[in-house]
């Protein structure tokens, strides 16, 4: 009896082990092999409005940048400002070395004085000639009268008349001389003024109230005509030069509200507005360029060239069936979604419309509200896939 029980027990134990193994094998085949169902998650198609938005990156730029430099080649004598300095309109920023310009102005000063003296000399000459002329007139008149009473000879009267004519001619010549001297004076004065202007042109002055952003050369440096020494921007003209992908830029226009996130202040969005869309697009990068201005100028000026992320909200689209973009698949070259019908899969070709940044896609055609579509799947699906509907594919931990 004992022997029997023992044999019976052993049979049971062996059978137990075998059943356990076979059970595990069945589990393995059904859960891990090709027969295993694919876990999928579902979403219900529902109509809703979506607000497409446009995301682009850009750099902080100033609308007006004044590059101030000399108009002649020369050496820099001094630069008065440093980057970060605030300057006023007309403030001296720096000066070029005048080399011999001051000496030239000195020479012109002397020439001017000389011209003035020469005018005085000619004026004195005119006085002298005038005196001579009035004497000659008197003499001529007297001799005329004496000739009438025959007190002098005809010849003597002729001589006096000639003296008068000579005096008159001398006066004309002296007057012409005065005019020439005055013109000379004007010329010298103009030349001197020109030099003084040139001298003033060597001073680099700020054309606007603004902020010095660059100082490209230091005293002693030789710069060529037109090369910038100092750069001044107007802080009020700060805006973002943004690049948007052309593919999604439909509906982008000026005046749309925008959100600006500066890289240095990530997480702190600022309100802005699209100022203008550039008439030229970037042909190399296939991007549309736009300028986005701040609503309110930042307290501290962001560095020119800082990276900024700009999100522009486009006009809301009218209510339409919407699915997550993860559910849209391409099968045999056709775009569509996997629809669950009576527990089995059906591929429904769709036409997609606008998308928003949260990954919702409008379905223009092919789906209607209330249909259940596959969003996530453990692996690529086909029409014969066995599926298992789950809440999430990944565990809570991830």
């Amino acid at each position, binding site marked *: 009896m004992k022997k029997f029980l023992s044999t019976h027990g052993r049979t049971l134990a*062996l059978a137990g082990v075998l059943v356990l193994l076979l059970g595990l094998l069945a589990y393995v085949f059904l859960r891990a092999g090709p027969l295993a169902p694919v876990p999928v998650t579902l979403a219900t198609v529902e109509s809703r409005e979506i607000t497409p938005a446009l995301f682009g990156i850009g750099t902080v730029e100033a609308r007006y940048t004044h590059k101030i430099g000399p108009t002649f080649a020369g050496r820099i004598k001094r630069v008065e400002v440093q980057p970060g300095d605030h300057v006023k309109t007309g403030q001296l920023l720096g000066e070029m070395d005048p080399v011999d310009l001051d000496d030239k102005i000195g020479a012109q000063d002397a020439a001017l004085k000389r011209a003035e003296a020469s005018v005085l000399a000619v004026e004195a000459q005119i006085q002298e000639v005038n005196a001579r002329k009035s004497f000659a007139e008197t003499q001529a008149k007297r001799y005329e009268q004496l000739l009438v009473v025959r007190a002098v000879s005809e010849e003597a009267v002729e001589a006096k008349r000639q003296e008068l004519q000579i005096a008159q001619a001398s006066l004309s010549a002296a007057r012409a001389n005065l005019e020439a001297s005055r013109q000379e004076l004007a010329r010298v004065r103009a030349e001197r003024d020109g030099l003084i202007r040139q001298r003033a042109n060597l001073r680099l002055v700020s054309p606007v109230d603004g902020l010095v952003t660059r100082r490209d050369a230091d005293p002693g440096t030789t710069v060529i005509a037109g090369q910038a020494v100092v750069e001044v921007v107007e802080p009020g003209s700060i805006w973002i030069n943004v690049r948007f992908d052309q593919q999604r830029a439909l509906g982008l226009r000026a005046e749309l509200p925008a959100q600006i996130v500066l890289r240095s202040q990530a997480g702190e969005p600022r309100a802005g507005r699209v100022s203008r869309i550039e008439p030229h697009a970037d042909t190399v990068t296939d991007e549309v360029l736009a300028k986005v201005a701040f609503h309110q100028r930042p307290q501290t000026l962001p560095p020119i060239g800082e990276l900024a992320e700009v999100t522009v909200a486009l006009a809301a689209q009218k209510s339409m069936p919407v699915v997550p973009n993860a559910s849209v698949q391409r099968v045999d070259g056709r775009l569509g979604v996997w629809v669950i019908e009576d527990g089995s899969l059906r591929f429904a070709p769709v036409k997609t419309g606008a998308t928003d*940044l949260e990954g919702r896609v409008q379905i223009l055609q092919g789906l209607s509200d209330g249909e259940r579509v596959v969003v996530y799947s453990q*692996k690529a699906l086909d029409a014969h896939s066995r599926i298992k509907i789950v809440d999430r594919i990944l565990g809570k931990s991830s």
Partner: protein
Amino acid sequence: MISLAGRDILHAWGKFIFTGVGLGLLIGVTLTMAGVYRGMVDDANVLLDNSGADLWVVQQDTLGPYAESSSIYDDTYRGILGMSGVARAANVTYLTMQVRQLGDGKARDVRAMVVGITPDGPCHPGQPGYLVDGRHLTRGHYEAVADIATGFALGDHIQIRRNEYTVVGLTRRMVSSGGDPMVFIPLKDAQEAQFLKDNDAIVRQRARTEQNPALNRPGVPGLLDAVIASQSTNPSVNAVLVQIEPGADPDAVAEPIRRWKRLTVYTRAQMQDILIAKLIATSAKQIGMFLVILAIVSAAIVAFIIYTLTMGKIREIAVLKLIGTKNRTIAAMILQEAVALGLIGFVVGKISATFWAPIFPKYVLLEPGDALRGFVAVVVICVLASVLAIRAALKVDPAEAIGG
């Protein structure tokens, strides 16, 4: 009639089961090794699948983009889009690198293949085919979709070169041919990542340029800036992925691109050949060789176990012969025991391989075909081994039962 084999197994069932389990673990290792080999090949195949491409357009005379580096201008795709039979074409870049996860206590490096894709509309070539969580890329910058093998979670911040990206989607089985998980980022960022390197490298590059007298001439202001600006742009991508019109012949579409665009074009079959015959050939052969040796060793061990198991019962067999048991009955007993042992071994092997396969860092693909082949092999080996044991058992002298 009672089953001699059954009685014998019941007699020492514990020993039998443990031998079977031991054998099974060995078979499990062999099956796993086959799975490792299949997984390598499958990695190469999924790389082709998940690119979603029918044609790969790469630099002329290169085996790019997976097996060799290839570089073409990023506006090449426009010309390709105009060719007949082409439905969609998209630029793509591939760069295997360390991706750094940011965050307190989470900072770590993950080796990944960074794929730059154009986030244009759903299911554009290059985009991951399916997701397990999150969403596809919608912004043109600073978003990433990662394979779950990277260990990243939704909302994680990762750093690729100079920029920080937010993980917005997770996918699965998107790996490079080397098995590195993929991280998908927008193309423009990827181009920058491939070219711009880190800040230090950029600063040094600028310094080098400044020191070059030909590029930094005193009389030409602006030249240096222009040179530096041109150095920090990269108009290249690694390949253009092309999807062809439904029903079009890939070779017929590829030929004009090869001829008129002077680029190299691979069809799926050619790309598969490159990946499997060239890229992973050596390492696959390495694993394959190991698999062959392991299979031979396993077969030998199975045979020895059955032989020794039979030899351990030689006295009992001698008694059986002594009491006049037929040779056929004894042979059947040994054969049945051997096959039963093999079956238990196979079942244990299959179960253990299936359970430990997911723990492997790289993909292990256990194919039903391999399991079937393994099953047949196990049965055949058991039968062959039992033949040896039967020969030995039948030769035994019944007198040993008494004399031994």
